[in-house]
């Protein structure tokens, strides 16, 4: 429950940030008079970086990018995963074989190197990051959904619907999809933290969108300005803690959701 409250809090904060703060306030051309590398105090809640930019503002605006990428990449992952998993599971036969071999192929190529290579080759923007994460992380959800579809399509009411002359589209839309939806939801919730972590990793490696500030990008900048060696903890700790909290909250919430949706997972 606490995790859900935390998540909603983060999302609301990310949504209202543009109304309560001004992006220009931490644009470097306007921060020339601010103190640099200033520890947290009343004026700067989380201190400032080497260009005098408020870390608190960066953290709030960074939440927008990190959460946006997290959600967008998850949507892409799930859409691809559902399409492939559903098609493979429902039609079976050679379609299943072909799709699953493709999935296997994507499953065995090492995730991070592929993501780094793709992010490096493509133009650096948020959408590239979203695409990279989507392309590299759909196979596991495809496999998961396929296995569920395989069991659902053998149920009696599916046979009955077929006997009554229902079309394939009708069966998939009315009988199979509703039965795998809980699984999709749960795996989507668990895909968000992975997407956020991947965005952070890529941004930390300098492969993110240079014009947008994200939590991973903040860590990268902290690294670039030697914040760790200099002991400027207020620069790298807040984004680190924020990432940890969001990822943890999503994971706990996802597990809880799984338990609710799948009674077999519930412990006594």
């Amino acid at each position: 429950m606490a995790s859900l409250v935390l998540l909603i809090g983060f999302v609301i904060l990310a949504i209202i940030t543009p109304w309560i703060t001004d992006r220009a306030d931490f644009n470097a051309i306007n921060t020339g008079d601010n103190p640099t590398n200033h520890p947290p105090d009343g004026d700067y809640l989380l201190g400032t970086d080497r260009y005098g930019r408020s870390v608190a503002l960066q953290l709030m605006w960074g939440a927008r990018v990190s959460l946006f990428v997290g959600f967008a990449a998850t949507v892409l992952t799930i859409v691809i995963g559902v399409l492939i998993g559903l098609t493979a599971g429902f039609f079976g036969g050679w379609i299943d074989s072909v799709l699953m071999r493709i999935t296997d192929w994507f499953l065995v190529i090492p995730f991070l190197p592929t993501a780094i290579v793709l992010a490096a080759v493509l133009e650096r923007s948020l959408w590239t990051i979203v695409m990279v994460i989507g392309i590299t992380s759909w196979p596991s959800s495809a496999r998961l959904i396929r296995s569920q579809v395989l069991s659902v399509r053998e149920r009696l009411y599916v046979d009955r619907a077929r006997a009554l002359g229902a079309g394939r589209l009708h069966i998939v839309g009315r009988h199979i999809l509703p039965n795998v939806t809980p699984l999709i939801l749960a795996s989507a919730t668990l895909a968000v933290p992975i997407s956020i972590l991947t965005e952070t990793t890529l941004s930390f490696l300098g492969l993110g969108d240079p014009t947008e500030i994200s939590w991973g990008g903040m860590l990268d900048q902290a690294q670039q300005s030697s914040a760790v060696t200099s002991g400027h903890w207020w620069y790298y700790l807040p984004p680190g803690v924020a990432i940890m909290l969001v990822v943890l909250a999503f994971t706990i919430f996802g597990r809880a959701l799984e338990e609710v949706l799948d009674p077999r997972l519930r412990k006594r």
Partner: protein
Amino acid sequence: MKGRSWGIAIAVAALGALIGTVQVTGSATASGAEAPGSTVTLTVGLQQDLDSPNVTAGYLVSSYELWNLQYATLTDKAADDFATIPGLAEEWTASEDGLTYTYTRRDGLKWSDGEPLTAEDVAWTINTSRDQEWINHSATTANLTATALDDRTVEITTSVPDPKLPIMDVYILPKHIWEGPAAGDITTYEALDGVGSGPFTLQEWKPGQEWTMVANPNYWKGRPAIDQVVFRLYTEGGAMVAALENGEIDAAHDVPADLFVEMQGRDDIVTIAGEQGGFTELAMNGMQGGLGDGHPALLDLNVRHAVAHAINRDELFERVALSIGTQRDTLGVSANTEWNPEIPEDQQLNYDPAAANQLLDDGGYLDTDGDGVREMPGGGQKLIFRYAERSESSQSAGIRELVTGWLAEVGISTEVSVYDDTQLTDVIAAGEYDIFVWGWTPFVDPDPLLSYFTCDQVTTDVESPLYNDANWCSDEYDALYVEQNQELDHARRVDLVHQMITLFHNEATYVVLYHDADTQAYRTDRFEGWLRQPAGVGPVLFSNTSPTYFNLRPIGAGSGGEDDDMSTGMLILLIAGGVVVVGAIGYFIMRSRSRRDEKE
């Protein structure tokens, strides 16, 4: 339940950190402790490995340091001012027409392996490098012919008047070692032989870790006071600085700017911002090679001037470069400051957004649709410039944020792309950019850097990129270039070069943002005799001829003992700290356990 697992997680993390620290200190003690009478080792930290010890193949700064130490040159350069002084040659005479020089080598010269170093080695190096176009020799030797008149004299003739002579600063290689490799493809030779004529020669290279050079007993100035020099590689600047601060290394090259500024207050470490003429520029696409698709507005000199006026170079220097280096708005063509002209006040392109707006307004670049971005005269294409930057530079992001902000204020929009150096080289060669930010570092003679901006160097074939990366050139500049290249009167040549640099500045195809400095630091407790080249402004390491190493002397004899005391002290402190941490963890676990008991 949650409380306890958290406690354990923290405990594990803290223990891990503790073990890590102890190990680091442990290795420091091992390398820092020296028995009396053992070898005297200078350890230099850096972040760039050798690309190749082979002087006909490598081109990275770290490799030049290796060759500077391993190979002596016919004429040397003074540490203070680059004045030409005797090297392997003790004297030389010029012919009447200035086309032929005769050098006489010192008596009794030997290679580090004991073989005699003769005029034949010199002649062979010069002629072979010319014929095979060795990358680090041919700029000097392309027009030269060398003949060994006897064992000690060599005659060098140039086919065109050459103002660089009698300077003969190419690395002389041992013919008896290199003759074999030169018969095939010389660039594939590994060059781990370690035979040279300089103060130190290569002993071992562990790629990615370190390379070691040992004193050459046959060096013509005598054996160095240091027995060996270890160049140790660090993947991260912060780790290198930590190693310097606790005495694992004696000097560090390329210290991150932020840490460099912080170290300036320490009394056991001297920081050196060494200048060699290197600079960072914002380049605009001049589009004269016919390649690519630069923004048409950049063909207008007034637009380029407006961009220059929109940029606050003073602020960039202070906030991005942290005032390390020099504020200078002209090309750095040499490590020697005499080649730098002063731009007359009325031609300076200083920060003046009002002037920038005026220039753009007058040129008809108006914002007719009110979106804050100007358009080409008469409407049409917007002034949106593609802005390319390097991912390898830690200053890129700061420069970009400020510059794009200032350009937006005068109605010029930007689209930022980040590239690694290889990608950016391709983008520049293809001319598919409007603005990029990069830099150059010159040699001592201004000729090479000046040559980059001639029409010959404009890339016309993407497959073979040339040096003129801004695709700008002019007949006037080219004429001046040819003139200075053959002007034997030094004062007149300096004047010609000043004219060229001023002309280039006024064309504003490059906006030189500032002159960078090599950030170096060394400990004061182990060695003395550090030399800056040139005096007062240059670096102590990785300079043009690297005179520091031979000049260094170890301080006293007890310095090793002090190191030991310090490490032991730190170890005790760490163990004490460890006990405290473990105790705290234990307490934490006990407490959370008892709390759990209460709950149950």
